[in-house]
């Protein structure tokens, strides 16, 4: 598998094979915690850390683990890292830890992570697996933050509330608000808002891809015509 370039890995993680928008994996945390941008960012970073660490470990042990028991081993590896992340958040970001609650331990069940371990890290070397984990994690985080920001804005007219939970007191200034008079649609923060928001994001992504395809199609015949002439 030497034909995989780092550029392709990054493009896949961010766009072409984005775990949230294309693979539609890890929807449970994606839909449940994205009621504010900061919640999305917090869970996204935690997931990214687990992505990278589990990809590295799985890649390191890929030649030692027998094929028959690889899945339980992968799950164990992922669970260990999730526990470590959970304890760290409990220690350093306690408020955020309380808000995200059950969804931090639930990263274990995020099928995107075991999906990458199985599909990529168990077949590739350590460096490539690291890049893949990082790209996939950041791609996932971007979707979480975008969806969280959109829902937070439509629902409450604010952006980055509780930023201080993550970046300390200095970050309070990051919070943007439309003011008290803003009449947000509460539905956006409730679960249906997550589904509607994700649906719109998927539609947007597919539309962008579709337009790119159309442009590519338009471009190729011209080139052919040129060479023919």
């Amino acid at each position, binding site marked *: 598998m030497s034909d995989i370039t780092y550029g392709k890995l990054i493009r896949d993680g961010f766009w072409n094979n984005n775990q949230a928008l294309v693979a539609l994996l890890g929807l449970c945390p994606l839909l449940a915690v994205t009621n504010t941008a900061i919640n999305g960012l917090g869970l996204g970073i935690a997931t990214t850390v687990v992505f990278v660490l589990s990809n590295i470990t799985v890649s390191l042990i890929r030649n030692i683990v027998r094929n028959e028991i690889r899945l339980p081993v992968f799950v164990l590896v992922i669970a260990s890292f999730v526990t470590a992340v959970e304890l760290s958040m409990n220690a350093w970001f306690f408020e955020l830890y309380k808000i995200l609650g059950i969804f931090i331990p639930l990263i274990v069940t995020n099928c995107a992570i075991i999906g990458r371990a199985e599909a990529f890290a168990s077949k590739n070397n350590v460096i490539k697996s690291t890049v893949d984990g990082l790209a996939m994690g950041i791609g996932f985080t971007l979707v979480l933050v975008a969806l969280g920001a959109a829902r937070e804005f439509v629902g409450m007219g604010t952006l980055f509330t509780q930023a201080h939970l993550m970046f300390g007191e200095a970050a309070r200034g990051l919070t943007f608000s439309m003011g008290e008079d803003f*009449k*947000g*649609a*509460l*539905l*956006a923060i*409730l679960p249906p808002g997550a589904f*509607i928001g994700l649906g719109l994001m998927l*539609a947007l992504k597919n539309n962008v891809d579709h337009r790119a395809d159309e442009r590519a199609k338009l471009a190729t015949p011209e080139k052919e015509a040129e060479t023919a002439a």
Partner: protein
Amino acid sequence: MQFPTITSPHTSRPNSVQKAMLWVILALIPGTLAMIWFFGWGILINMVLAITTAIACEALVMKLRGREIKPVIMDLSAILTAMLFAVAVPPLLPWWLTVLGVAFAILLVKQAYGGLGYNVFNPAMAAYVLLLISYPVQMTSWLPPMMLNENPMGLLQTLNVIFGGALPGSLTWDAVTMATPLDTMRTGLSLNQTVSEISSNPILGQFGGKGWEVVAGLYLLGGGFMLYKKAISWHIPVSTLGGLAVMALLFNILDGDAYPLSSFHIFSGAAMLGAFFIATDPVSAPGTRKGQIYYGAGIGILVYIIRTWGGYPDAIAFSVLLMNMAAPTIEFFTRPRTFGHRGSGND
């Protein structure tokens, strides 16, 4: 001698979407006029605003999809959606909520699924629920009916309230609005009053609420007209009202002080409108006759459950949306027997 061979179908039906929608719209008009009579200009203003928004949204989508605009608007389905939405929301709803609701109904609930015939949910009711959950205060600010209204507002004053949010003179929202009959019954029951005590409240009339029962009666009349014109079949409205009435009857027999009569439930709120005009939406309801009966009964029972024990005074919108979700399953289990085959269509 040889007879000419004519292939089936042997009769043509001079029916079209446009015609069916037109019958429904015509049937809706008497009830709507009564609403305007009892609750003021707001209903009419909301309706004009809703229809304008609906047409604009349909035109926008058709333009985006590169299709012809006129035939889609002329099928009248968007206009019917807008009308149903307008008679369901309170008369003094701020204009931007009407626009938001109708835009949501047409753009997301209807057109994002592929347009007329493809929408899973009833667009008008989905929009109603969106607004009810997001803006509960505005969505529950109902006016008292005309005969109890001490501060009737003229056309200009109503326009000012809807578009400017300013009540005339020194009026407050508390003075202008009044609990609906269903609210009154609900509050009274929660205070341990008996049904007969609550019925002495001036807002309650013969069956349901004053004014409301007339509107419901006219919707029933419109429903009868649609049945006569075969724009709808009897299955859904009868089973919806039947489900609601049977539930109300059972509990009323059990304890007449704590559970109002069937007639109260049928003539209050949006029950009649829902049974004849909303639940009968041919797109989001099941297609099989037997399925339609289950579907309607489900709506009626859910309405009773939510009205009596749920968090909201009325429940047509929630019940219709819930049963919309169940419609594909209902259809699956009620497939008619194929002619010449034994057993149900599921084999």
